[in-house]
């Protein structure tokens, strides 16, 4: 039923697009977001049950440990998005750009997850407490999703939501995935026309996501190396 109502609204913004197709990229990003939360929770668990310290006293290369942990999470996110895309197609969604597009959406989802993986790990290192990490990350997760272009086109939403959506990373993740899905310039928060077609969305959003990943990544690397260094604090 939600689909019927929302479908009508979607058609106002993007004519000829059915709601399932509209929604699948948003779900892909949602999955990436939810999985990224578990990364921080995993780190807190390791800190709480002493495995973090155990790794620090072992001769393992520390960079390799954190890279390995992140790769495992990234792999899981990619796999989950693949499943979502598969289910979406079964339910009638259409990936205009085909298999290449599907891989592209997985890549966007993974790229998108970096900043939130970094963010949830920062929460973990800072709070060293499972509850705080879960609450902190989850509290953010839902507003981020709803105050973005994920579930409805921005032009049908109130002005204040449009305003928040403009600075919300989820908007950029969803728009990138959706542009690949529909092969259209779907982004409304920034007007870019330099590249033509879907690229007008993909290039700037990917740039934003790379930038975010870089900023948050630097933050988490700083915090992690501080937490794992032997310098007295």
């Amino acid at each position: 039923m939600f689909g019927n109502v929302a479908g009508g609204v979607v058609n106002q913004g993007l004519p000829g697009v059915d709601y399932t197709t509209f929604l699948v990229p948003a779900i892909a990003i949602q999955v990436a977001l939810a999985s990224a939360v578990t990364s921080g929770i995993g780190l807190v668990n390791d800190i709480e049950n002493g495995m973090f310290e155990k790794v620090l006293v072992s001769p393992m290369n520390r960079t390799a440990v954190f890279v390995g942990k992140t790769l495992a999470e990234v792999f899981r996110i990619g796999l989950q998005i693949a499943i979502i895309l598969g289910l979406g197609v079964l339910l009638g969604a259409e990936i205009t750009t085909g298999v290449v597009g599907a891989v592209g959406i997985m890549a966007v989802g993974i790229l998108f997850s970096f900043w939130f993986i970094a963010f949830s790990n920062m929460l973990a290192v800072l709070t060293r407490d499972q509850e705080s990490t879960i609450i902190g990350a989850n509290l953010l997760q839902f507003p981020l999703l709803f105050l973005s272009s994920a579930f409805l086109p921005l032009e049908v939403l109130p002005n204040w939501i449009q305003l928040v959506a403009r600075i919300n990373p989820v908007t950029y993740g969803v728009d990138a995935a959706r542009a690949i899905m529909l092969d259209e310039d779907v982004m409304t928060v920034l007007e870019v026309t330099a590249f033509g077609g879907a690229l007008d969305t993909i290039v700037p959003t990917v740039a934003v996501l790379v930038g975010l990943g870089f900023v948050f990544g630097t933050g988490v690397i700083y915090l992690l190396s501080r937490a794992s260094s032997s310098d007295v604090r």
Partner: protein
Amino acid sequence: MSNEQSVADAKTHRAHSQDSSASRTEPAKHASIDISGLELTYGDGTEAVRSVHLTVGDGEFFGFLGPNGAGKTTVIKVLATLLSPTAGEVRVNGFDVRTEPRKIRESIGYMAQETSIDPELTAEENIRFACEAYGVPRGERDDRTAELLDLVDLEAVADKRSEEFSGGMKKRLDAATALVHRPPLVFLDEPTTGLDPKARNRLWEYFQRINEQGTTIFLTTQYLEEADTLCERLAVILDGGIVADGSPADLKRQVGGDVLDIELGDGPEARARAATLAREFDDFDIATVEETETGISVTAQAARQSGTDLLVALRDAGLTVLGFNVRAPTLDDVFLAITGERVDNDGGAAETEEST
């Protein structure tokens, strides 16, 4: 002090055992741990450790005692390369903690105060993970895992997830994971805290077994009884500095005689009077008198011979003596003599038992 002696003892130990230390590159004479002038000041200005000098010989079973907050864990963390010293020279297995931390990590086993195992993994998987972390060659992992499961008596539950284990089982598993690479030196930070006596005894046996195989053990504990049973040599840390060092017997001798515990019938006032009487009692040259919850405790060389005279004197002074007990000093008394405080746990046996 008795350091050279214990090194010599340790060598004899090692001569009997075939063990992994053959792979060691350092000369046999070197000490496992060599600390000189160690200082560690935390960022908030807390001087956790100030000027610690300590040498632990190869193959020794060494106990590191001190009240909570005295700096035990800080020292162990420096030795395990988790904390960098503020000042001083620290060498572990011949490697400098500042410049060669990785070499140290390869050559030590570390069992933290909190049990550190992954509850989602089975006993066997936990040990396998440790094998991988410490780079145990692939071909040896199966044998090593089986051997360690056997050593800590967990082979029956090898395939069970470790979250279901009891506290003692988790501790034993934790100990096993610290040993996968046959480290010549193992740090045990309060390994038996919170365990029931049976589980504690099993861990003790197990630590003794690996020590007999030539492993140097550095143990911190709050249980003096544990240090007394296991350790060849002890050091006591207080307020960030080492205040005593020697074998358990040496330390007990330092207490200065036997201990006479007297239980008194009347209130605190009577205890104070009795304490004054005991201090002024002529037969004891040097006596340490302490008021306890139920009476007084007198430590003196002549406690055994002249104890009855003191009891008579107390009775003559109109005090009611309900019970008394003469005993050799325990490490608890050593601790009291050195630190001025009793260890607050069930480990020290300083209760008066007999009645008149």
